[in-house]
């Protein structure tokens, strides 16, 4: 399979820019280190050549940026989307969040992105350089010399259980398209379900009590595109800025998960960005698992315009009291 390099993408972008197909390019900008790339909009070819990067650390799901970017853009925007990003892309289109005509999507294959936290866990602090290899990375460190790490050990949590290598939206594809994958993404949820209520309560109490209500999970989430979040709106009756106690943390995360239920594509950004390392995706996945089980398999973003399970029904749906008791049987 063709390895996607920054050069290939830069060439593609430069070509589309110069032919006037697009007016700007959404990609990733190089940072101070090898791992701190930032999503960025490029309009200038020199800037593109010097600062555009693509590699193991381009995990950020950039589809949400298109809402803002398309608002001001006169010309089309080129965006490079990984397979999982395309699901969010479609979901945003389903919700009329931007004009498809203003975007030129180049689908790029993805072999899984690296999590710098995991690298730091294994290589320790003081990382000087990270270089990619065929099946992993080599890390030069201040204190522990040079360490080589296997890709599967440093994958982002969400990439470990990649749901699909298939692009569900694109104008052009680089490389071959993949397929929807069999995966074990619900195993963690199932493990929690298998616990006693006390254990589950303690687990979540411990996880959620770390929340500092920085709102990173919400602000990065491609499903959270409200003009004003109910938790920011004093009129909503549930506004809370800083969680005063564990109730408010729960309230925030339950309601947030509920609001994105059926719309969440399971992109995993919430867990990736959480500065307190709370496994927030386990909340969203619970809803996805339940939805699949109760109402039939549904993948948000698979199709533009599909009807989300929570704005749909059948006359034979499961009764809530049975839904919670399903574990007892």
């Amino acid at each position, binding site marked *: 399979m063709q390895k996607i390099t920054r050069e290939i993408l830069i060439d593609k972008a430069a070509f589309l820019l110069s032919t006037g197909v697009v007016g700007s390019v959404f990609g990733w900008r190089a940072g101070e280190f090898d791992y701190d790339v930032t999503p960025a909009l490029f309009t200038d070819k020199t800037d593109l050549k010097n600062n555009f990067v693509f590699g193991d650390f381009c995990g950020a799901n950039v589809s949400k940026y298109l809402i803002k970017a398309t608002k001001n853009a006169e010309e089309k925007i080129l965006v490079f989307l990984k397979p999982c990003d395309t699901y969010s892309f479609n979901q945003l289109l389903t919700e009329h969040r931007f004009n498809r005509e203003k975007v030129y999507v180049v689908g790029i294959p993805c072999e899984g992105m690296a999590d710098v936290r995991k690298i730091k866990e294994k290589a320790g602090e003081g990382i000087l350089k990270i270089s990619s290899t065929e099946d992993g990375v080599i890390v030069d460190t201040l204190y522990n010399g040079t360490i080589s790490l296997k890709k599967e050990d440093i994958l982002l949590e969400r990439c470990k259980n990649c749901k699909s290598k298939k692009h569900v939206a694109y104008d052009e594809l680089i490389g071959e398209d993949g397929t929807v994958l069999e995966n074990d993404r619900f195993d963690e949820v199932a493990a*929690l379900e298998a616990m006693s209520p006390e254990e589950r309560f303690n687990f979540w109490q411990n996880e959620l009590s770390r929340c500092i209500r920085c709102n990173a999970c919400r602000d990065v989430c491609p499903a959270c595109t409200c003009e004003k979040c109910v938790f920011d709106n004093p009129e909503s009756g549930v506004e809370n800025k800083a969680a005063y106690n564990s109730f408010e943390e729960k309230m925030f995360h339950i*309601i947030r998960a509920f609001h994105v239920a059926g719309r969440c594509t399971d992109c995993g950004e919430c867990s990736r960005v959480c500065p307190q390392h709370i496994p927030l995706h386990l909340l969203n996945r619970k809803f996805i698992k339940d939805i699949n089980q109760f109402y039939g398999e549904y993948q948000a973003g698979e199709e533009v315009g599909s009807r989300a399970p929570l704005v749909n029904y059948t006359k034979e*749906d499961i*009764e809530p009291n049975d839904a*919670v008791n399903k574990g007892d049987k």
Partner: protein
Amino acid sequence: MQVNEFKPKIVAFCCNWCSYAGADLAGSNRLSYPADVKIIRVPCSCRVNPMFILRAFQRGADGVIICGCHPGDCHYTSGNYYTRRRMALLFSMLDYLGIEKDRMRLEWVSAAEGAKFATTMNEFTEKIISLGENKRLEDLRCKK
């Protein structure tokens, strides 16, 4: 009467067309159920936002029950179907978070089912009493 008897707080959301009328019928027929149950009238069970349920727990409710028309009988044709989905997911999520699953319940009570209303409330209250005070979704600020 015992001094330390646990008096649960129970919020019942009743849809205007079926369940509230069912509660009225229970009243007309003098079918008693515990005074711990207080009813909030909503036009349809689908008006019940999950936020209301959490709010009730925050404010010290020990149980929340939602009553609506039987599936197929919604005054607005489909409201209770949405309620059913929303609550199935919400209850399941609360259970997942370790909240006692019997603290929340959804029942279909028609305008004709005064007796069912009373029995449901009696049973639910009993259940809540057996569960005791709501500790897992409480907001200590709201405790006296």
